[in-house]
């Protein structure tokens, strides 16, 4: 399938959202709100829940399925206070030794006046720095769009997985094409050279697992993908939890340390 077709599936308004997965996979989800500094950002949902017998912290970037919902969720584009809420919840998870699971689905961090005034760059940077040191197992799953720094801010985790029809990129194919060829309409071509599909990123070692969806995308059989995620999470968390914390942290450091190609 051409990469751009995956982009279209990833952006589908009917595509299952973070809350869809959270509600299906976990029991007793209690949503926790706010960054304790400025306000609650509805583009981010998060809280505590049970995965089988294990208490976990779950966080997601939430898109809407209706215009009304999307306005409320700011189309899944978090503000700095959204990232600060995620950090608060992740530090809380660390305190209570809960594993952390992040569902990523954002075209990017919101580019706006308030976002800049309140330090969008600082908020993302802080997450990158803090997440590398969290003393609990962490897993992130790109379930739709993984847009740039706004996605990475939730993806500095022990494992990064992608759904088969999700994408993860440094910028959108449209943006890429308009820079390179001054023509946003060549997004399809851009998508091909950018290496943004789950398969490409698996080959590059950027993600550890690609999770299957039924033909046409997860919305066609939501239970299929959600159940797959659940069983993989259970297996993986058992493995990660068995590691001693220093090993976990040094492996996480190495996971990100190895990215980059150069000669000297």
């Amino acid at each position, binding site marked *: 399938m051409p990469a751009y077709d995956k982009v279209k599936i990833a952006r589908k308004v009917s595509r299952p959202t973070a809350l869809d997965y959270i509600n299906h996979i976990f029991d007793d989800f209690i949503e926790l709100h706010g960054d304790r500094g400025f306000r609650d950002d509805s583009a981010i949902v998060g809280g505590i829940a049970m995965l089988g017998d294990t208490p976990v912290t779950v966080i997601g970037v939430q898109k809407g399925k209706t215009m009304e919902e999307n306005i409320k969720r700011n189309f899944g584009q978090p503000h700095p206070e959204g990232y600060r809420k995620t950090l608060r919840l992740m530090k809380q998870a660390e305190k209570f030794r809960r594993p952390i699971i992040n569902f990523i689905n954002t075209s990017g961090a919101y580019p706006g006046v308030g976002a800049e005034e309140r330090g969008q760059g600082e908020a993302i*940077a802080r997450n990158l720095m803090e997440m590398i040191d969290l003393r609990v197992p962490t897993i992130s799953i790109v379930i739709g769009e993984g847009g740039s720094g706004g996605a990475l801010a939730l993806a500095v985790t022990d494992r990064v997985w992608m759904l088969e029809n999700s994408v993860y990129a440094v910028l959108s194919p449209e943006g890429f094409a308009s*820079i390179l060829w001054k023509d946003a309409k060549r997004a399809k071509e851009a998508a091909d050279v950018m290496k943004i599909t789950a398969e490409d990123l698996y080959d590059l070692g950027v993600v550890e697992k690609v999770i299957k969806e039924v033909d046409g995308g997860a919305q066609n059989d939501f239970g299929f993908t959600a159940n797959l995620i659940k069983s993989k999470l259970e297996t993986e968390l058992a493995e990660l939890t068995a590691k001693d914390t220093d090993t976990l942290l040094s492996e996480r450091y190495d996971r990100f340390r190895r990215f980059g190609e150069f000669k000297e």
Partner: protein
Amino acid sequence: MKLLNNIRSGIDKISVENLKGKVTAIKDAIPVPEKKEKKEKPKKAEKSADKDKKEEIPDGFIKCPSCSAVIDKKDLGALKICPKCAKLFRMNAKDRVKAIADKGSFDEFDINMESVNPLDFPDYEVKIKSLQEKTGLKDAVKTGRCTIGGRPCVLGVMDSGFMMGSLGSVVGEKLTRAFEYATENKLPVIIFTCSGGARMQEGIISLMQMAKVSAAAAKHSDAGLLYVTVLTDPTTGGVTASYAMLGDIILSEPKTLIGFAGRRVIEGTIKQKLPDDFQTSEFLLEHGFIDAIVERESLPGVLADILKLHNVEKAGEA
């Protein structure tokens, strides 16, 4: 269905606008020097010559974008400051190192590290090669060990003249190694940032450099060591969203562009013009995101004082 389409177009619109932000941020990463720099370079002068009506600037002169005075480049001095209006011109990494490190103290790391083409991106190698010839740099950062006011530290200086200081594998690796060296040798790190953001030719690998450098900065911080960033014009995109904003102390020069999203993207999103001082160092100081704005000529002294205040002993006296 109609409703669905409306929703969909709403989403497309938003995500395209968001993209535009990234476009702008990344645009800066394309190796097209800014207008004012165009005039600096004789090669570009030919180009502006065929655009008639352009004012002729004699060789060796430059027009100040701030006060419009035509200035002999020599009069900008070592610190590249307009003698008429005190505007700060961008400094390249070599000049910056000279201005900051004690004379002869800079011992550069990883001098021969250069880019490969991790995503087999068309023409990337060619672009790199031609920029290397033009700038004399291998890539967009210099790192090394030096002393400032006699006190040792690890210094990293980005160079906007090389692909707009964009963050690719080489920049990421050199900065990561600089942090790791500093952690091992219990030294402070000082980084002068200037960058248009991610290097799009390296795609996701560029994005991963943000995490990599931040991780190394975290380890350095965990060891109780000092990290100072000096944000210089421009510091945007992925560099702002990673190591630029992670200093224990964050300094900046006056009237420096610092931000995450590009101005045009934001204007496109909110459908209005932004004030001139938006995303300047003064704006960030007011909103609480940098510690102090320091005049260019005062930077070596201020940095030496900061090292002293963190008990960094003078070399040879430890």
